């Protein structure tokens, strides 16, 4: 298979899968086979692509040129490869999970659900492989729109309200600020193609560069930097598989990924470091890390707590990005992968608990661990990975982020990172501990409760074992992260 075909297939396959899902929507078993088949195929193709890419091959494709100089074009570089790899691999796991989840809860409109999901993955691939800001923006917006029906899935008043917040904040920031940033970039630089080393050197007064960077930082609402983070907790009304893949992996990572792309390939890390473009803005990320952690501590709803934890963790990536030093960028890129595997495990566990017991609140989980040891075991592993302790993958990204802070002389930021790790411990670890060691509330008995259906368990076990594996073998992601940061 030629490289261009491979690239095209990765972009189109999920979309074609969605059409097939709609076509066979009346036959649930066939429909789920289509989902699984497509997802598996995408996972295989993305691994093949990654192997070839690391072998030094190039992938590029230009589709059309709507405005002279502005093309819809794709080109694979290290960062995009990393993002596509994470999303492609986790889609197939989530598909296994969603089938068990949706069927156990007898959810309505499952065809729409699986079809929208597949379309969203196509959009993620488009974001990951975009060769310029226009293409990236196109798929960024399509991703928002295709996930809207997923957030509003249940159709209740609460879901509709959440979906409205979701759409308004994401479209609002992207049209009002992100698009403006792109337009200004095009206006001053005459190009919006991603280039190693950036395109703004000598084109913009460094004093204004900070303002332009702020347009991107706040305009890319999917990165959930405060004060534009409200959409993420609002999106938690979606079914858990959606929260798991889209709002812990695909959508939010599309945000931080876009910001990384802009930082590395539009501004260029040299330009940022030399002119101190992000000097003040970096504190917005630091504040988001701490504030979101503090809010998370006060949330009793499990999914809400995980959502705020995501907000906080995303700002780790944003912070590493804005440090713009080599270690900072490596840490940020690796955290895209590490946080994805950790957080998806946590969401899977939250969904499993809901499927079996219909419980949403943390305070109701006392003693449940003995009835559902696998679920809470997985949760524990995911939590430790997020906190960043060995022997789990999450440690590596935090290591490099810390190194980045030291490298650039931001010792106060190092303090923020350490403090936040402590906060992570206080809001994540009590959940499995409570489940394993506390006594159930009076009158509660868990004798009748068993683990969640097999597909759910399988998905959870795969992701939690991957967290462990990534500690001993972070190599593929590390290599890609180093390449993205401009090293050898």
């Amino acid at each position, binding site marked *: 298979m030629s490289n261009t075909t491979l690239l095209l297939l990765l972009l189109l396959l999920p979309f074609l899968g969605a059409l097939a899902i709609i076509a066979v929507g009346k036959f649930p078993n066939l429909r789920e086979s289509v989902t699984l088949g497509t997802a598996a195929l995408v996972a295989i193709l993305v691994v093949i692509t990654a192997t070839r890419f690391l072998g030094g091959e190039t992938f590029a494709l230009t589709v*059309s040129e*709507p*405005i*002279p100089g502005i093309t*819809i074009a794709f080109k694979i570089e290290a960062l995009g490869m990393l993002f596509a790899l994470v999303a492609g691999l986790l889609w197939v796991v989530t598909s296994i999970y969603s089938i068990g989840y949706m069927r156990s809860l007898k959810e309505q409109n499952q065809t729409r659900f699986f079809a929208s999901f597949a379309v969203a993955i196509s959009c993620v691939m488009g974001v990951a492989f975009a060769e310029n800001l*226009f293409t990236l*923006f*196109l798929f960024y*917006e*399509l991703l928002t*729109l295709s996930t809207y029906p997923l957030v*509003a899935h249940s*159709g209740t008043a609460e879901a*509709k309200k959440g979906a*409205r917040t979701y*759409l*308004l904040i994401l*479209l*609002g920031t992207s*049209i*009002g600020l992100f*698009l*403006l940033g792109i*337009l*200004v970039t*095009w*206006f001053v630089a005459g190009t919006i193609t991603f280039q190693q080393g950036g395109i703004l050197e000598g084109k913009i007064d460094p004093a204004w560069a900070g303002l332009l960077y702020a347009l991107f930082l706040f305009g890319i609402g999917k990165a959930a930097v405060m004060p534009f983070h409200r959409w993420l907790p609002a999106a938690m009304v979606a079914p858990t598989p959606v929260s798991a893949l889209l709002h812990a992996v695909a959508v939010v990572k599309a945000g931080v990924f876009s910001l990384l792309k802009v930082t590395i390939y539009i501004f260029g890390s040299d330009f940022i470091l030399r002119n101190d473009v992000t000097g003040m803005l970096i504190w917005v990320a630091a504040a988001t890390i701490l504030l979101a952690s503090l809010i998370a501590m006060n949330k009793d709803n499990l999914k809400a707590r995980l959502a705020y934890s995501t907000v906080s963790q995303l700002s780790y990536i944003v912070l590493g990005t804005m440090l713009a030093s080599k270690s900072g960028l490596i840490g940020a890129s690796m955290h895209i992968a590490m946080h994805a595997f950790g957080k998806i495990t946590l969401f899977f566990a939250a969904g499993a608990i809901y499927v079996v017991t219909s419980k949403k609140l943390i305070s109701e989980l006392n003693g449940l661990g003995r009835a559902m040891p696998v679920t809470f075991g997985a949760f524990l592993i995911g939590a430790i990975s997020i906190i960043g302790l060995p022997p789990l993958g999450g440690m590596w990204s935090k290591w490099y982020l810390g190194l980045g802070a030291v490298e650039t002389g931001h010792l106060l930021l190092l303090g923020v990172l350490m403090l936040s790790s402590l906060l992570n411990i206080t809001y994540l670890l009590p959940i499995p501990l409570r489940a394993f060691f506390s006594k159930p509330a009076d009158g509660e008995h868990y004798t009748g409760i068993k683990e969640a259906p097999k597909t759910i368990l399988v998905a959870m076990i795969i992701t939690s074992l991957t967290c462990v594996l990534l500690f001993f073998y972070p190599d593929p992601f590390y290599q890609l992260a180093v390449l993205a940061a401009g090293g050898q």
Partner: protein
Amino acid sequence: MWSHLSLLLVIIPLMAAPVVAILPPGRIAWLVALLVTSTCFLLAGMQLWLILNHGLVNYEFGGWSPPWGITYRIDAVNALVALIVSGIAAVTVPYALLSAEKEIQKHQIPLFYSAFLVCLAGLLGITQTGDIFNLFVFLEISSLSSYALISLGRNRQALTAAYQYLIMGTLGATFFLIGVGLIYSQTGTLNMMDLAARLPEVTGLKTTHTGFAFIMIGFALKLALFPLHLWLPNAYTHAPSVITVFLAATATKVALYVMLRVLFTVFPDGYLTNTPANDLFLLSGVIGVLSASIRAISQVNVKKLLAHSSVAQIGYMAIGLSFASMQGVTASIIHLFNHALMKGALFMAVGAIVYRVGACRMENIQGLGKQMPWTFGAIVIAGLSLIGVPGTAGFISKWYLVMAALEQQNWLVVAVILVGSLLAVVYVGKIVEALYFQPATSTNLTVKEAPILLLAPTWVLVLANIYFGFDTDLTVGVAERAAQALGVLVK
């Protein structure tokens, strides 16, 4: 034959109109109208092709050369606008068959098609002519027929709406005529090219300024430029659905064309920027975008909501023109084209709902998205184009408009354009939410998808919205040539 092309474009619908009027009630009138409009579309396409490949066309009536005779002078601008007008007419007529049968009394149908053709002839005449008095004649032809068409709407409010439009439209036409008279008194000619040659000598005179002001205000009324837009929402809301589609996509576009023509071809370079006119255009554009978008949000009638949105879109075009730069005028012309596509598609889809449900207030359309998936899809995609999401024609408009504003370093306008897009998210979202997320009322549960004859034309326009989001050779390429042809200074 080729040399008569430009004339045929106007003459064919004009001659066909009385013939259609005396046809018996039934579908034969429709068939003739269909034939005429598709011929016009074909001719307009050929005309544009000729212009793009062979340059200007000059046609002298009866061989009388100017200044004695009337000439048609066609360049890239008129050719493009004529193509839009006849193209929209060609997709509207197939749509009209069922929609008109539903909304208009049977015995009036031949008259309806007759008036429609007269209106088409008038609009095409305005775009084709090179004589400013002749333009007034065609303006009256198109206006009078559109008053009649609007009044055919089935509820009685259509009559007041048509009357309101009649008053405002006549005021506009009168102002225009007064303006033309004043200019004529100073220059002694009505031919646009001669005017362009003679006006520079008299631009300092108060009479010329007054004439200019009268012409501009006259056409601002026809264009429904804020704050002279008050007739538009009612007229669009209560007219038969087909007529709303046709007028929304063509009438205001033609009015904008006349403005561009007068501002940049007839009046000398720099006239716009040396008078307060451009500031006034900018001001009314900016306030128009914001106030009309906000008004749109609070509407409960979908047609009225879209009508207010049209006023906002006209504001964007006014902003582009006020810059008096290549980029700005190009952006206006691009938006003129793209807006015809998106509003055409939206009003058609709403018309399909009216066809099935009989009304289009928010409470009437609840939950119809599931019952009418194709109509719903059309509204979503055309709505995204209206917002300006990338991948649609609307994005191209916004891109060029913002670029034009950046070129002027006018950050306020950049902000207004983006805020306008956000407000569009809200009002398009309102329609989508009512259609898809409100539970269907019991009467709406049995509603079926609209017939194919309504869906096909709608989707032609919807797909055009996507197509012109990716391939902009026709829109941007021609718009740039059009801006040059108008005589905008390249800075």
